[in-house]
């Protein structure tokens, strides 16, 4: 280790840093702030702004002997010969002497600031960045306080240039640091913005369709060191110093991305605290300092005018407002009346506390195991509990020699931040193996991109797993064998699996096969080791938590098998239709709207706890208005099993209550005792019930430590405006394989059932209409995924459909309309995107619709 450390001195202070460290980073580590603009610790150094100029001296050596030359006092002679150098591009070397406080350095800083300000409009009083602006801050620190540039000589340029519907550019403010351009190119892999013109006329421009076409565009506004880039969401919204930052988590995807919502009390909102913007919060093991645009812009649902504000109870066939007491009494009474014919389904966006109490209500209060996720797509929570990615892992650690397998998932659309991190792992040398029915964007970075025929995913994966056991020389023409050789030689091995084109049962087999792959190698496999293990691509942010909390017909919290399994969701919906299920509790889900339930059927009683009047809520007997995630606190568990806290940020809407509160109040009415007073207390009960959560509490989850690189605080100029994490890094729970031996899984041989006909596979799109996004649509409206059916050229010809035709698609008894795209699908598969979830690979009928006449 010490071999790789280099010792240098910065202003007389000695520091040892890893070989390859840049001078600015080495200085930063000991609190010496060399100012930078173009440099960003997550981007390749370019040395273009010239703000970081310092004096760098190297020990002199005798040309003949190579021995260091010494001064008379025995100290090494140092040669500062090359004048000022950019600290952001020079790597440290042994014995280097860096001076950052000398006159030439101070002068260069002041001069560069003066240059930057020659064309800068100095409109700080009306700039969104004013108050948290690196240029402003560094001008205060290093600038001269006056400019010799004659005002009339300033260049004036456009100030409101939309780079698309999400990001605006102020051309005058841009200091041409290229951080935004480089981020899009290097980090996001979407080089959709660039410099136009040259010299003083360089300006950011885009030609992409739609403008600035990237899921990451918002991040450029965080790292832009001036107010040149602003989001359509925040610009002109508030001054930074009026904002209260509150830590939160992504409510959209299972990455558990850390974010900060900035809130402000507003008169026009009746004195309520409202969200002004959403920004990334640093968590280097989760999302680093990046969030997708969905995370940034899809928050308006929380303050949507459509939110339910009071309990509703059906009277004379109509839902009418009622008091909480009345509503809760009805719910408790009706549930108890139903006896064993009671059932509950929940969504997977709720907190652990909510889900735990839902489970308590059913198992302890109503003595029923009829409990399940309303729309389970992906199996294997129990398998993840055995071989899930080990605690302490970080995708950022994956690199050369490591292998990542991704099965049946399009991470770019499902969990963009994982896509981003795997792309970077690939760039560091990790080998990615994808196995999908069709090409995904990750294939570009994959060493092996494997395909399976619809219906044969399990069989194909089985081949891969079996062949990975065999020692080979890695040379093979058979793509599966070649991939297996790569997998077999993996240093670390991480496996992701999703549900694209798979039935629920198939996902279970996939999870088991991947578990076996992780357990392989003569019993001394990858499972249980740091930076190894299984990661499910859960459909929602807290699906993991739902499994952990026992929202499952056959598991109690902590994966304790139940002596007697209850009904699964499918059976419940059938029971509702046939009358065997009498009362149904729907928590944060919309089975009717999702097409899982055909109306309320023969239910005697239907209660829905929700934010919106969904199709299911509209059919309910009682509707209980729930709070959104930003109105209350709680914990989510991400797919890497990291339990993290989020905090109340805005004033609750109307009379809505936190889900856990409502459930505790129903629980009290069915004999579960006094409701808990705080989410933190509910979490105590969670920890008692879920052995994996042992040792966690709200305080331990809130612990944080300094992360690299520095962001937030005084360091805005360095890592950008992402928030420093002072609210907690959460805790990962330990998978079974980490602490003991786990046996291989039995995977039943599945007969390949290849029925003839074109198969329908639903593919994910990040902006697919859904409850949250559809109530936030204003901004992302133009980018929302429209129902699209992709066919291969051959299949399109067979079914008589041309590119751009409107078609009616029928499969599994469901009918949808979509626009046809020809050429983007493998033969034999019809890919549909922009529609709600469709499981498996059903045979599909396609009918071309007559073009609607335009009036």
């Amino acid at each position, binding site marked *: 280790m010490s071999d790789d450390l280099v010792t240098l001195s910065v202003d007389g202070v000695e520091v040892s840093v890893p070989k390859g460290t840049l001078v600015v980073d080495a200085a930063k580590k000991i609190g010496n702030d060399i100012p930078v603009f173009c440099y960003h610790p997550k981007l390749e150094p370019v040395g273009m702004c*010239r703000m970081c100029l310092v004096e760098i001296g190297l020990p002199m050596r005798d040309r003949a002997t190579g021995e260091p030359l010494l001064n008379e006092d025995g100290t090494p002679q140092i040669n500062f010969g090359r004048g000022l150098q950019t600290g952001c591009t020079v790597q440290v070397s042994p014995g280097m002497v860096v001076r950052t406080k000398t006159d030439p350095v101070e002068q260069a800083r002041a001069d560069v600031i003066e240059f930057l300000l020659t064309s800068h409009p100095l409109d700080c009083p009306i700039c969104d960045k004013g108050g948290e602006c690196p240029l402003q801050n560094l001008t205060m620190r290093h600038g001269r306080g006056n400019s010799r540039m004659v005002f009339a000589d300033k260049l004036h340029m456009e100030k409101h240039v939309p780079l698309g519907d999400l990001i605006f550019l102020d051309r005058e403010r841009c200091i041409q640091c290229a951080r935004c351009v480089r981020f899009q190119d290097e980090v996001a892999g979407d080089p959709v913005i660039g410099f136009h013109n040259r010299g003083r006329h360089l300006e950011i421009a885009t030609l992409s369709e739609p403008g600035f076409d990237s899921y990451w565009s918002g991040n450029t506004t965080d790292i832009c060191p001036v107010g040149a880039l602003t989001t359509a969401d925040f610009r002109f919204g508030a001054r930074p110093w009026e904002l209260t930052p509150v830590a939160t988590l992504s409510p959209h995807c299972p990455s558990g991305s850390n974010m900060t919502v900035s809130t402000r009390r507003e008169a026009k909102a009746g004195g309520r605290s409202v969200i002004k913007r959403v920004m990334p919060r640093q968590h280097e093991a989760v999302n680093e300092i990046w969030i997708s645009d969905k995370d940034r812009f899809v928050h308006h649902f929380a303050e949507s005018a459509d939110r339910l504000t009071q309990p509703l109870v059906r009277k004379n066939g109509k839902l009418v407002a009622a008091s909480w007491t009345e509503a809760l009494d009805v719910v408790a009474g009706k549930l108890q009346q139903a006896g064993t014919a009671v059932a509950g389904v929940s969504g997977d966006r709720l907190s652990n506390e909510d889900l735990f109490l839902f489970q308590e209500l059913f198992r302890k209060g109503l003595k029923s195991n009829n409990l399940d996720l309303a729309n389970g797509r992906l199996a294997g929570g129990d398998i993840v509990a055995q071989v899930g990615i080990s605690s302490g892992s970080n995708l950022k650690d994956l690199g050369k020699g490591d292998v990542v397998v991704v099965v049946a998932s399009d991470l770019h659309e499902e969990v963009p931040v994982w896509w981003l991190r795997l792309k970077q792992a690939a760039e560091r040398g990790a080998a990615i193996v994808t196995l999908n029915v069709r090409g995904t964007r990750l294939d570009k970075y994959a060493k092996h991109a494997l395909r399976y025929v619809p219906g044969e995913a399990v069989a194909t994966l089985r081949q891969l797993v079996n062949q990975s056991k065999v020692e080979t020389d890695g040379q093979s023409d058979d793509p599966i064998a070649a991939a297996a050789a790569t997998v077999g030689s993996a240093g670390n091995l991480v496996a992701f699996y999703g549900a694209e084109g798979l039935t629920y049962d198939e996902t279970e087999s996939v999870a088991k096969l991947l578990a076996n792959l992780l357990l392989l190698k003569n019993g001394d496999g990858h499972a249980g080791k740091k930076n190894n293990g299984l990661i499910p691509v859960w459909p929602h942010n807290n699906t993991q938590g739902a499994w952990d909390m026992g929202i499952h017909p056959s598991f109690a919290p902590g994966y304790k098998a139940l002596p007697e399994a209850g009904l699964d969701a499918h059976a419940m919906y059938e029971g509702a239709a046939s009358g065997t299920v009498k009362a149904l509790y729907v928590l944060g889900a919309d089975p009717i709207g999702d097409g899982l339930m055909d109306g309320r059927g023969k239910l005697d009683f239907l209660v829905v706890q929700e934010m919106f009047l969904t199709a299911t809520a509209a059919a309910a007997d009682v509707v209980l208005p729930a709070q959104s995630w930003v109105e209350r606190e709680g914990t989510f568990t991400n797919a890497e099993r990291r339990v993290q806290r989020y905090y109340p940020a805005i004033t609750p809407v109307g009379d809505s209550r936190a889900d856990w509160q409502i459930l505790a109040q129903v629980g009290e009415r069915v004999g579960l005792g006094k409701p808990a007073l705080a989410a933190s207390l509910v979490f105590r009960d969670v920890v008692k019930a879920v052995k994996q959560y042992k040792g966690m509490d709200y305080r331990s989850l809130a612990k944080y430590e300094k992360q690299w690189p520095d962001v937030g605080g005084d360091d805005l100029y360095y890592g950008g405006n992402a928030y420093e994490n002072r609210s907690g890094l959460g805790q990962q729970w330990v998978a079974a394989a980490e602490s003991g031996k786990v046996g291989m899984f039995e995977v039943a041989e599945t007969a390949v059932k290849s029925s003839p006909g074109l198969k329908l596979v639903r593919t994910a799109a990040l902006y697919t209409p859904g409850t949250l996004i559809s109530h936030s649509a204003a901004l992302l409206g133009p980018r929302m995924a429209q129902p699209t059916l992709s066919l291969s050229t051959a299949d399109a010809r067979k079914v008589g459909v041309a590119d751009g035709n409107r078609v009616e698609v029928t499969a599994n008894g469901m009918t949808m309309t979509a626009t046809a795209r020809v050429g983007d699908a493998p033969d034999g598969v019809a890919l549909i995107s922009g529609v709600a979830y469709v499981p498996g690979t059903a045979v599909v009928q396609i009918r071309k619709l007559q073009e609607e006449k335009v009036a």
Partner: protein
Amino acid sequence: MAHILLRHRDVENIHQLDVYRQHQGYEALQKVLGMEPAAVTNIVRDSGLRGRGGAGFPTGMKWGFIPKGAGEKYVVINSDESEMGTFKDRELLERNPHQVIEGALIAAYAIGAKQIYNYCRGEFMDAGYAFEQALKDCYANGLLGENILGSGFSCDFSMYFGAGAYICGEETALLNSLMGNLGQPWSKPPFPAVEGLYARPTVVNNTETLANVPPIILNGAEWYKQFGTDRSPGPKIVCLSGHVNKPGNYEIIMGMTYRELIYSEAYGGGISNGKAFKAMLPSGGSGPVVVEDALDAPMTYEGLTPFGSVMGSASVVIMDETVDMVWMAMKCVHFFHHESCGKCTPCREGTYWMEKLLKRIYKGQGTQEDLQTLRSVASNIGGRTLCALGDFAINPVLSTFRHFPQEYEAKIKPAAAVNGQGKKQTAVPVAAD
């Protein structure tokens, strides 16, 4: 004496392959194909040949930096010639292309490259076409492509046209441009010899530099060293322009004085229109201006050091007594402002600012404070930029300040007298920004 570089002036149609071959063409190549590559580099190193692109870096040493061993390597010819007052490479490309091709092939053999690119400024499409004809003839005659002259050595050669950007003459900007990127320089290290084109070891040499190589190989290092001085051996093409009677390219032997160049009948033939000499830009717009006292300095890489200037690419622009030096500085700064790639702050902002100040001063609207600011802006650029363009841009300003302070002072009128009627000596429609 017969020309070594501008041989087309002695031998008609030497741009044709058969004519070139009749005059020892490709014999140097033939010779090296039987040698150890390292020995070829040694000859070039021993000859003392220095880069003709301006910086005068020893060519053999540059080739020697290329790591041995397998993998792709490249030779890239710098034919981007865009320095104001420079027009030598254009003539070589058009009229004596085979000597450049042969030199490049020898370089490729010496460093183990299998691909040569000639990066030619886009405005040279005409010369480029002539050069491409020469390439085509080489391919047809086994001088390019597989198994050259039956030696087992294979090498390809393609033209690349820039599209109007002076900065692409800077070697890393050139390589970026050749890779399809914006033609902006990168911060060195990495040097091209280590990570150049497509991140592979690359030699970038000026067109004229490579034209020197075949005669060196053919006649040996000792022969070459008999020309010129110890530290600046060999012939050099000088581009003479401005107020002289006979502007044009001249092949001289280094060490000759500027006075001889300007006044000798064999060269410039004196100042035009019987006017008196006032000043000279020895290296186009990028080197400091010098005055009469420097005329007896030798044309070598070191010759102008005592006069605070450089030979550079030897683009000698002569100005007679009528030329307004503030106007001259403004023209130069306009050039550098126009050509600044915009990547680094001091050059991007500083050239813009300097041009604004110079225009104001030239128009007679400047103040004493503007003069100070101009001087200070120029020094704030110096040594702080990513590539040398920033340093080039301040040379005409600081050197005219040094030699002609009175011309600046004369334009600064007491506030009351300023009416925008600066004394005009040459009509100057200065292009808008």
